[in-house]
């Protein structure tokens, strides 16, 4: 629209006291922080904070992804063990503190790998732990120490220690919390494979 149209309305003389107020406000505005600068600073801060947060989140996510990959690899390995043609499955009923539980062994003696699942075992006393043993030609060799502060299902994959020529069976006993080099406590089960 034509620039001069703003002069169409009649002029209105401002109140006399308005002059000082308007000019003072205009001059004061120059000293106030410019909103553009404030907005820019806020935007920069936001971007920096957003970048930091994104970095932290990415690192966290990366950690979670790596943990999940590890668990997935373990699960796949377990599945390979369970499906293996040389794997034997033995389930042993176990009574602990008056309750009936079970220990299931998936033993691939050819590959020397075991998978053990414990169900419904009673919690250990504070100074005790379950200890699993490999029965070998040379006697009992520790397989795993399993302190249980709560009664909950437990799974683990085991490898036969180096130097053990042949595993003939397995056993589980209750031992001191730090474990024993050979069974000393009550034997929960012992079986031959």
């Amino acid at each position, binding site marked *: *629209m034509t620039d001069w149209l703003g002069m169409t309305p009649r002029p209105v003389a401002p109140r006399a006291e308005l002059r000082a107020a308007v000019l003072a406000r205009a001059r004061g505005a120059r000293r106030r922080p410019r909103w553009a600068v404030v907005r820019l600073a806020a935007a920069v801060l936001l971007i920096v904070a957003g970048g930091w947060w994104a970095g932290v989140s990415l690192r966290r996510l990366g950690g979670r992804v790596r943990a999940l990959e590890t668990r997935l690899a373990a699960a796949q390995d377990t599945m390979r063990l369970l499906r293996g043609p040389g794997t034997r499955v033995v389930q042993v009923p176990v009574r602990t503190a008056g309750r009936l539980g079970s220990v299931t062994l998936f033993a691939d003696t050819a590959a020397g790998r075991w998978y053990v699942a414990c169900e419904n075992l009673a919690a250990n006393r504070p100074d005790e732990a379950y200890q699993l043993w490999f029965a070998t030609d040379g006697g009992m060799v520790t397989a795993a120490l399993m302190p249980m502060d709560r009664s909950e299902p437990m799974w683990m994959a085991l490898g036969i220690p180096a130097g053990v020529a042949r595993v003939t069976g397995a056993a589980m006993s209750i031992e001191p919390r730090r474990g024993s080099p050979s069974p000393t406590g009550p034997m929960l089960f012992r079986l031959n494979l």
Partner: protein
Amino acid sequence: MTYSNRLSQEAERSLLERLRSREEAALGELYDQLAPWVLGLARRILDDPAEADEVLSDVFEQIWEHIDRHDARRGALAPWVLSIARTRALDALRRRRRWWRKAERWGEAHLAEDGGPLSPPDPGEAGVPGWPVHQEVHAALATLPEEQRRVVVLAYFEGLTHSEIARRTDQPLGTVKTRLRIAQAKLAEGLKHLKDWRR
């Protein structure tokens, strides 16, 4: 009117330079010369003295803050200041959220004022810097046929879009655009000699 007694464009350039160099007295001079026109325009748009005073204050704050944005090559200072005033006043009008109702009520009432016969100046009015320009602009608007003047007034003073003007005037959108284009060309031609607002 004659412009023989008008201050030169050189004087405006000088005022601009003083404003850009943050000379506060220059802002006072600008206020003395343009505040009546800013206030007149704000009151025309808002029809509210208190709000118009607020717009006046906003306008001079913006001028002081952004005087370096005025490009002298693109026009004189007064139209630039008045365009700021118009924008601020229309913003205030829209903020009220009852501008449709006000526009309906005032649109008709002000139509004659914006393009009708110019009444004689009140005492002191003719001495306001820019009064001759006001007379010329008023006269240029008055030469427009009523239907063109109406769309100009609705667009400029009420801030309506083309579609809103079409609805308001119950005219096809194309007709509104054509009338505005013709009116703008006539006004531009009639006012092209204006370079300064002072006398």
